[in-house]
């Protein structure tokens, strides 16, 4: 079975631009979460969606938004990029909101 897939794997953007990151969960998983991992730090929670509803939001500015589609795939959008947004963005899925998370290998975003 395919694991969690994220695209693109790497991305370079300029300050002020907008970016969209995509995630396909494991087949049958209805929950998708997004995490930001800055180099040398642990992943920080951004959003969780379950059955297309937002279940949780971390301490991130409104420039960050996400949505989940009817097929349970998800997008993370970041507007007005800052240098500090450079990070590994991880998507994780689970079968429900209480099961352990399955992570993708992330999208490495570099903002110049």
């Amino acid at each position, binding site marked *: 079975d395919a694991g*969690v897939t994220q695209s693109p794997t790497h991305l370079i953007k300029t300050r002020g631009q907008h970016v969209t990151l995509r995630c396909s969960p494991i087949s049958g998983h209805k*929950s998708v*979460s997004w995490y930001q991992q800055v180099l*040398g*730090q*642990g*992943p*920080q*929670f951004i959003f*969780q969606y379950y059955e297309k509803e937002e*279940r*949780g939001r*971390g301490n991130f500015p409104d420039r960050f938004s996400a949505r989940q589609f009817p097929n349970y795939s998800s997008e993370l959008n970041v507007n007005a990029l800052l240098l500090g947004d450079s990070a*590994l963005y*991880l998507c*994780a899925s*689970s079968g*429900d*909101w*209480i*099961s*352990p*998370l*399955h*992570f*993708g*290998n*992330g999208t*490495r975003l570099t903002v110049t």
Partner: protein
Amino acid sequence: SQQGEEDPQALSIQEGENATMNCSYKTSINNLQWYRQNSGRGLVHLILIRSNEREKHSGRLRVTLDTSKKSSSLLITASRAADTASYFCAPGGFGNEKLTFGTGTRLTIIP
């Protein structure tokens, strides 16, 4: 969920030795999870221990939980080069909402 603090920050051992890393947290929990992250890749779930459990095993992994001390430990026995990774704990509530990770323990296995 709350953030766990992993200790030590870094650990280097010879292949074949045992590795122990610890996690402390501040408030009561329903469960605690351990994850592994190989360099530049996603996290992999290792084990979940519930608050009413004191010890749990999975292959070469042994996790303990002491709720009175608000701490957990992860023991990897007979370490292998492939165990080289960062290890994170995630103290949690009922579910996987808002898992909060610390900076992890970076384990290096020396061949």
